[in-house]
């Protein structure tokens, strides 16, 4: 579904990504972890071309992301993305957040978009909040709306960039629960997270990044059993302490 082949990216003279290669098969859940600044966000944003890259190739469902003639809006509409800071549109109601792109990008009627939005709000347990504005919701609720907004586009894959790291601890689980359900339904997911409980529960593979390189790319069992690199072991011992 998602194939990342030898991606390299520079910010000026600074190399953020070095020859990164990995893949996410249909229905697969891949967790990406690594120290701060290792390039996780940058890599995941390359997948839907929110960040350009200078070398290598990424294809999503066979479509090359970097190619000049790719219809990027069309491609992006098929890939859901959830951000660390939710990025809900604060000037729009929860329902408008869910319907905007359905109407503008997919050409759905307002009625159809609203029906879809209502069903998804129900699913993430926020049916009662449709008319509210994002600022009136808790962080956990906002992130669930953000997931519903992405799902409203009927994506073929979902990207998550540290979806729980801006949340208070007591709200992390309500978001993870939604993600676990999604994974169990067979959604293709690429998830940057340090929630190793989530990785243990639903991930198929774990990718470990450090200094812009993919150091480790292994099935979950292998990764938690015996990560081969010293850097991965060090990282795991650090985050599993708490």
């Amino acid at each position, binding site marked *: 579904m998602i194939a990342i082949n030898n991606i390299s990216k520079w910010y000026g003279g600074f190399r953020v990504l070095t020859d990164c290669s990995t893949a996410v098969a249909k229905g697969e859940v891949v967790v990406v972890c690594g120290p701060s600044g290792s390039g996780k966000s940058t890599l995941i*944003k390359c997948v*839907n071309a*929110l960040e350009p890259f200078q070398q290598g190739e990424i294809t999503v469902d066979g479509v090359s992301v970097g190619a000049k003639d790719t219809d*990027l*809006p*069309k*491609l*992006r*509409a*098929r*890939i*859901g*993305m959830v*951000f660390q*800071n939710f*990025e*809900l*549109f*604060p*000037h729009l109601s929860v329902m408008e957040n869910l319907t*905007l*792109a359905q109407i*503008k*990008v*997919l050409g759905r009627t307002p009625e159809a978009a609203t029906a879809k939005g209502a069903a998804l709000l129900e699913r993430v347990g926020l049916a009662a909040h449709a008319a509210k504005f994002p*600022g009136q919701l808790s962080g956990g609720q906002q992130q669930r709306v953000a997931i519903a*907004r*992405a799902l409203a*586009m009927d994506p073929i894959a979902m990207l998550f960039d540290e979806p729980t790291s801006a949340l208070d601890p007591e709200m992390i689980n309500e978001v993870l629960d939604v993600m676990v359900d999604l994974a169990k339904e067979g959604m293709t997911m690429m998830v940057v997270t340090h929630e190793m409980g989530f990785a243990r529960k639903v991930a198929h593979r774990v990718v470990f990044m450090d200094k812009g390189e993919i150091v480790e790319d292994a099935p979950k069992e292998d990764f938690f059993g015996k990560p081969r690199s010293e850097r991965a072991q060090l990282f795991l011992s650090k985050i599993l302490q708490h």
Partner: protein
Amino acid sequence: MGDLDFEIIGRALPYLAGGLRYTFQLTLVAATGGVIFGTLLAMARLSSFKPLALAAAGYVNLMRSIPLLLVIFWFYFMMPVLLQSLTGAERPPQIGAERSAYITFVMFEAAFFCEIMRAGIQSIAKGQAGAGYALGLNYWQVMGKIVLPQAFRNMLPILLTQSIILFQDVSLVSLLNVTDFVGAAVKVAQRDSRVVEMYLFVAVVYFVLCFALSAAVKRLQLRIAIVR
């Protein structure tokens, strides 16, 4: 100062009201047009297409470096000549002082509103646009539906404050012999030799209006701050 005759104001009121109406009209048109063109200029200045960004920056800096009065004169006296040489007409086309004033003010204000809207656009976190693009929206949709509404809302108090300044600046058109509020007062003052009364009256009206509008903007500013 013994023989002030304030009844002159009552007699001249309909004429003065006509001038005030024109002042409001010109303010409204210049503010609306200025915000629209200013927003487009701001988008151009922030464009990654360098020639466009440079051209917009050049225009804005030029307008902001020339006194408004000079722009008004320049446009009124030079534009017909310029148009004549461009079209090769026999005589300079007549634009007329009022129409010239509308065009000048829209063009001039656009440069100032551009800088306000540019700051407004930059005040919206990049992640907001990113979220829009990630949903498949294109540049114009991201701007029109996500970035600009928020930028406009954040900048509304400053846009209105600039419009109050504009309301005062509009009086400069009286130098083109246009009958705005000040222009009307000048004409009455000269006709009836009642300079002190008329100029006092005009100043009081400007003060009351601008003071009240500024107070309203302050209240709006507080309300926006609370909502956010």
